């Protein structure tokens, strides 16, 4: 039975089936990364915990002691934001160079390149698993109980995964055609982090700007995570709704662009 070599590009369903066929690539790349991430270091895999903790210490020192922000449980408040952002930031930054990083190997083998983005998101998930553990440990130490609203966490993580995948795919494609893109992305993401209520709460924003501020999809994300984890309340639906819509849209856009342009990757590397 003769069939088109590029059949997988003729429909998203066929493409997903091809991705499933080559799924072991994700497992292999994931395993390689995990094994080599902290190899040879004295503290070894302890760095999965220490890296985010050190980051937290720096932020807490600057904001709580230098800038004198007064907020109850500020370290946990901060860590909610850090955990989410470290997942998204890592997915997007690694995503935008995951295809170009293949180099000449792309001319030797033929497999659905979207698996590279899936791999990046898997690795980011692995990293924040440790951070979520730390978060719960901090709650335990601060004697903060969990409420039933914690059950929203899988939903929130799913939305983050959609955002991570969508952005990763979109930025991967942009990164192929505009090689400067990683350099633009890094400061842009930095700016977005500071413009989002991760280091501070939305109450700090003057009322007249607050409505525009609430359009930021990360606003709903950070507020909701803090609500369900730290305050035991339900998600801030007015802003989280925007987050969900943004996540779905980003995924839809990222997926279609990646799937449509992948046939031309090798011609533009």
């Amino acid at each position, binding site marked *: *039975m*003769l*069939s*088109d*070599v*590029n059949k997988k*590009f003729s429909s998203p369903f066929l493409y997903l089936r091809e991705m499933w*066929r*080559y799924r*072991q*690539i994700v497992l*292999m790349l994931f395993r390689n990364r995990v094994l080599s991430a902290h190899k040879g270091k004295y503290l070894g895999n302890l760095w999965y915990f220490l890296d985010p903790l050190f980051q937290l210490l720096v932020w807490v020192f600057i904001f709580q002691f230098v800038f004198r922000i007064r907020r109850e449980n500020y370290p946990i408040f901060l860590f909610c934001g850090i955990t989410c952002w470290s997942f998204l930031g890592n997915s997007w930054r690694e995503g935008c160079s995951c295809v170009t990083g293949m*180099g*000449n*190997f*792309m*001319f*030797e*083998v*033929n*497999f659905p390149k979207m698996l590279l983005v899936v791999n990046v998101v898997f690795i980011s998930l692995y990293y924040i698993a440790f951070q979520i553990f730390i978060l719960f440990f901090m709650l335990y130490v601060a004697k903060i109980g969990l409420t039933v609203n914690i059950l929203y966490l899988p939903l929130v993580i799913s939305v983050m995964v959609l955002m991570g995948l969508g952005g990763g795919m979109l930025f991967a494609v942009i990164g192929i055609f505009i090689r400067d893109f990683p350099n633009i992305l890094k400061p842009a993401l930095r700016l977005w982090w500071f413009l989002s209520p991760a280091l501070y709460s939305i109450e700090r924003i003057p009322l007249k700007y607050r409505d525009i501020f609430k359009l930021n999809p990360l606003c709903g994300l950070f507020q909701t995570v803090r609500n369900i984890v730290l305050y035991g309340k339900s998600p801030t639906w007015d802003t989280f709704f925007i987050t969900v819509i943004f996540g779905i849209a980003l995924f839809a856009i990222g997926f279609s662009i990646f799937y449509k342009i992948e*046939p*031309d990757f*090798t*011609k*533009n590397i």
Partner: protein
Amino acid sequence: MDDQAVKVENVSLKFKLNLTKSKSSAKSFFFLLSHKILNISERRTFLALDSISFEIKKGELLGIVGRNGAGKTTLARIIAGIYTPSIGRVLVNGKINALFSLGGGFQQNVEFSGRENIYSYCIYQGYNKSKIDRIVDGVIEFSELGDFVDAPMKTYSAGMKGRLIFSMATYLKPDIIILDEVLSAGDPSFQKKAGNILEIFKSHGATIVFISHSIEMIKQHCKRVIWLDNGKIKMDGLSQDVLPVYGDFIGRVKGVVRRIS
């Protein structure tokens, strides 16, 4: 219809090339500097393949010859699915394994051992771990690498990498094999093995596309030859008809540079 392995239908491939040109005269130093900083370049379209059509029957051993830059590797990549044609399409019946160089398939995994790279290579070809588990011992034995199979691949010679790649191709039994100038490199003992390797592939009933600069090897193994020149098929026929004309051609032509238009 059923005995066809590969069908190339009216395939053309256009590249958009960025040509960075720089003036070398000292007078235009500042001009040059501004060009380099702003990375100003020309964009031209390059037609790598032009209306290529042919079929390959199952079990056929097709030779492809042509000068450097004729489009042989490009054509091989298109059949393997690495490039997507700008016009036309390629139909295949079965699994393809394309070998472009003796070490390339091992990527940046040179820190890993040969054994680990067997898994890595086969997974990139789309096989799952259980299938690889079944063949890995056979692959190691056939490659005659011995204890080196557990040493990092950066310590391997080109010949060793070649033996590993061919060993895997033998055990994976692809339906279509593309060999892009991989049998020409290597020491004389490797050269001798090269002929055996082709025989082994033939005995599996594989369809083979053999790209080579060695007219001798092509003459020895291929009944049919396609001669590619400037992205077009110049001749497609029996090796005894094509090869003498091709041999004459490269004997006469000296250093003609291909124009990008």
